């Protein structure tokens, strides 16, 4: 099958607009001062849309669209998983979003602990975790993952007087600081960022203005429909070519400059940003969201003495040492560079976190195929 078929078959609401955007993208990339042009997006949903609808096959050959650290489950660091596993193994009921269960800790995942008899529940929302706490007399820990969009929901629950036996083990992450880290990595040659529309729905586009000033790299906010992604890329290449880096909002029907101010107040009332490691990437100053002292009562880390040291007597198997998730999330490698991808490492037998989560680059590429061989596509055939 021609990799561009997905693009052609997709029922765009407006095929003429799709063709127009594709032609504009071709022209703009052709006008760039150098080739290739490399841009990064930081959202698993963007990667899903790009891969599922075969958009890479429609991109100009000289355009590289790379997924960065856009999978909150994948960047949850090993010690954070160890905390949850240790609690589960000492008999505490732990609830989390489904993808978190198989993320490897030092020696075990939550799924391993569950298989050994620990009480580990999958929930689709923090509200369901609170319901579990209401149904049980025992302590219920919500192992919370997700970027700012998801952290707002956790915050809303914590200001709403949850039951006393409920607490939050926060692994929430904040995206803007990690963009700063990736932008400065010498190995990455990123010329601009495509920011995630729904995270920006909360933060507003203004949150990226200082980033642009500091790094001289443009940021364009884009939605998730294939047309939205194309429109975002067109705007981003336009700004790159102009030589005047700035923030542009290509998703105005969901995102404003100020964002959802009410949600931001809620977020920062409950959480404070603090530095911490993102798995495989780096220490990210202000990249982790932790509960403020005012909410210490609901902070699992304050409420329990968590001793994960029993999990540390362990030498990682050779396979894990070969895993390239870190480089993939930093945009330095792609899944096809990893010898394990699709061989030893599959969604059924994941070696690294990127193959575990539905938002992980490896799992997405494994399902949809990743980067089509662009040489096989006849340009202009559409």
């Amino acid at each position, binding site marked *: 099958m021609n990799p561009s078929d997905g693009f052609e078959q997709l029922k765009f609401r407006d095929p003429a607009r799709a063709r127009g955007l594709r032609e504009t993208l071709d022209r703009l990339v052709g006008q760039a001062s150098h080739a290739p042009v490399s841009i990064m997006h930081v959202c698993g949903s963007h990667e899903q849309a790009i891969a599922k609808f075969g958009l890479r096959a429609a991109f100009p050959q000289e355009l590289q669209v790379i997924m960065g650290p856009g999978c909150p489950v994948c960047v949850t660091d090993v010690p954070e998983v160890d905390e949850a596993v240790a609690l589960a193994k000492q008999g505490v009921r732990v609830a989390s979003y489904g993808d978190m269960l198989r993320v490897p800790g030092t020696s075990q995942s939550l799924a391993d602990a569950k298989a050994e008899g620990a009480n580990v529940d999958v929930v689709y929302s923090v*509200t369901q975790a609170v319901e579990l706490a209401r149904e049980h007399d025992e302590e219920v820990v919500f192992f919370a993952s997700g970027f700012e969009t998801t952290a707002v929901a956790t915050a809303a629950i914590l200001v709403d007087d949850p039951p006393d036996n409920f607490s939050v083990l926060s692994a929430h992450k904040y995206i803007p600081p990690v963009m700063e880290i990736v932008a400065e990595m010498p190995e990455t040659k990123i010329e601009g960022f495509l920011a995630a529309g*729904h995270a920006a729905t909360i933060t507003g586009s203004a949150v990226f203005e200082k980033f642009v000033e500091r790094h001289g790299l443009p940021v364009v906010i884009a939605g998730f429909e294939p047309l939205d992604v194309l429109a975002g890329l067109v705007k981003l290449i336009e700004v790159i070519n102009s030589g005047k880096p700035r923030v542009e909002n290509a998703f105005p029907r969901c995102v404003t400059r100020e964002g959802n101010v009410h949600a931001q107040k809620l977020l920062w009332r409950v959480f404070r940003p603090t530095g911490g490691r993102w798995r495989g990437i780096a220490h990210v100053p202000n990249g982790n969201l932790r509960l403020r002292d005012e909410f210490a009562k609901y902070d699992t880390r304050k409420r329990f003495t968590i001793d994960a040291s029993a999990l540390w007597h362990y030498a990682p198997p050779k396979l894990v040492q070969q895993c390239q998730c870190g480089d993939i999330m930093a945009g330095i490698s792609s899944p096809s560079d990893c010898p394990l991808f699709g061989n030893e490492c599959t969604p059924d037998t994941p070696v690294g976190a990127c193959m575990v989560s539905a938002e992980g680059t490896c799992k997405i590429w494994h399902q949809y195929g990743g980067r089509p061989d662009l040489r096989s596509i006849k340009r202009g055939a559409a």
Partner: protein
Amino acid sequence: MCLGVPGKVIEVDRENQIATVEFWGVRKQVRLEVCDSPVDPGDYILNHVGFAIRRIPPEDAAETLALYDELLRVADEQDLMTADVRGEIDAAPNATILPNGAVDESE
């Protein structure tokens, strides 16, 4: 998981900050306290993990819904994006049972 899912507001319980929202024929209770503007029946909201994170004006809804129509029309259970959207719908409790345990009489 940051995709969210749009749904149409059927009914609003302002006192409890909860809306009955319809997602492709399924009615769910979605919490409103994160949303920054008041929503009315007929509006669309973007639901993420059981919370409305934004009101979508009716005139902008069609453009937002197109992607989801495509994902849910194919209904491939294995598809990552479709599973993500279904998860977002599942995140909100069914509309027939209110969070306080009372039965919604309107159903």
